[in-house]
């Protein structure tokens, strides 16, 4: 984190600026066309660009989480401890509400840009096993937190940043509970929280790469926030 910290309080030195300015003369001579960030990989579904892309990105994750918890509630593991199904029933509702809220928000923001319904692949999850369910839940919740934390800088709208934060902290509350159910005391363990006391953030492409094995459709997050 200390490397990342640097730009926070170190002004770009005037001298290093003039390095840019000097290079400018050289670049001017050999400039090529604008790099164009608006093409997507063939054979994939693009989540889109700009704030709508970020919303679709969140929508993809919430679809995945909502489908997962719906299945958990529908076929609860026989070895759930007392009270655990009740927790998951509540989380399932939260995630379904997140999903449908985002769907409504995207439709309102830009008609015709809504990501299609995704088909989950849960073959690697054993829904009859508490441990398997909790392991998957931990993965989804931590991924969700890191995704929202990383998406903040991609948003242009203050209102969407706030609403993303409103969802992010609920995901973090889920993550802490699920982690403790799986491994007592791991709610803010070192594998998640760094030496500065900071949670993780991930880029959309990294998050989608991590989630892709649970989704039938191939998603492309390369334009999200661009």
């Amino acid at each position: 984190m200390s490397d990342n910290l640097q730009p926070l309080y170190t002004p770009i030195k005037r001298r290093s600026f003039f390095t840019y300015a000097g290079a400018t003369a050289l670049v001017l001579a050999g400039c090529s066309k604008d790099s164009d960030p608006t093409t997507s990989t063939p054979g994939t579904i693009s989540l889109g660009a700009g704030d709508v892309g970020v919303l679709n990105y969140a929508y993809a994750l919430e679809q995945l989480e909502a489908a997962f918890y719906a299945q958990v509630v529908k076929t609860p593991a026989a070895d759930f401890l007392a009270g655990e199904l009740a927790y998951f029933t509540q989380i399932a509702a939260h995630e379904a509400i997140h999903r449908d809220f985002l769907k409504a928000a995207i439709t309102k923001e830009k008609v015709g840009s809504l990501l299609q319904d995704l088909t989950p692949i849960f073959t690697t999850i054993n829904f009859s096993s508490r441990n398997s369910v909790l392991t998957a839940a931990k993965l989804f919740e931590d991924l969700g937190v890191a995704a929202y934390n990383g998406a903040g800088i991609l948003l242009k709208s203050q209102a969407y940043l706030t609403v993303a934060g409103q969802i992010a902290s609920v995901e973090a509350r889920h993550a802490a509970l699920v982690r403790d159910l799986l491994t007592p005391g791991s709610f803010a363990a070192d594998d998640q929280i760094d030496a500065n006391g900071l949670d993780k953030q991930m880029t959309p492409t990294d998050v989608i790469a991590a989630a892709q094995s649970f989704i039938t459709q191939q998603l492309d997050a390369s334009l999200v926030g661009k």
Partner: protein
Amino acid sequence: MNLFQIISEIEKVDPEVYDRLDSRRSIFKHMTGLGQKLSAAALPLAVGAIFNKVYAQTPMNASVNDVLNFALSLEYLESYFYNAGQASAPLQLGLSTTNKAALEIIRVDESNHVTFLRGVLGAAAITPPTTATFDYTGGKGTGAGPFADVFINPATYLAVAQSLEDTGVRAYKGGAPLLMSNKTVLTAALNIHSVEARHASRLRTMRRGGANNNAASQGVPAAPYNAAPKSWISGTDNGGASPAQTAPIYGAGNNTNAPTGVTFDAESNTTQGGANLTTLPNTTGFPASAFSEAFDEALDVTTVKAIARTFVVNGSTFLA
């Protein structure tokens, strides 16, 4: 001549170049007309003049520093609280082993937040408060406030801890839009924000299961949630741990000067982005509580300060 290509090159070194410029469009406006007047040889000089102006500005404007110092103040409030809790033998006696371990993790995180924010702010950081700045009994310096037994009674201690963490979550969320001009700072703030939410979740578990319960995540929430809360905020949690003092933590904020499109609603809010959550499709059969639980709410600086000053001695200018 391709100015955007140059900026794109600079962006590789300085990802925030676009924030330093007003916008792509305005930089273009600066250049309009110049091209006709200047030869290609003179252009670098003109471009240099524009960037020189941009980089002569402080990278972090005053409002970002103000927000960070506000966050730092709250971290001191939390950090000193957990330090004092750890130092109190009678309190430690009443806590289970797992709860003590969890509180130690939280204590270290909050201490790290203080160090981290001081590092970010550098010379702009506020003077560290003394421990005498705070009165965690809520007595404003009398030491005999509504939480008078805070460092003796684990139930009171956890109640205050939950109050501080839930406030922190709302404060960081409220501050985030004010940090959008600096992407590195914004991400750091979001990364602290979610840690505070993890803490709040764990503290709520402790209160649900009981201070001396060794199970890390058991316990059944019991409405009205003052004493046995869920891991997330349900409605206004009946005013929180001690409604006479903690109700504002779960109430509505002040929308004066709120960022565009942002409102500081009570935690019981069920309308987000103009959409009534309770009428969304596919959510029939969900309990009414789910719609407010699914979203935490942001809180404005003024309201957060008023809440935090419950624990600051009278006469202190800290968080004033």
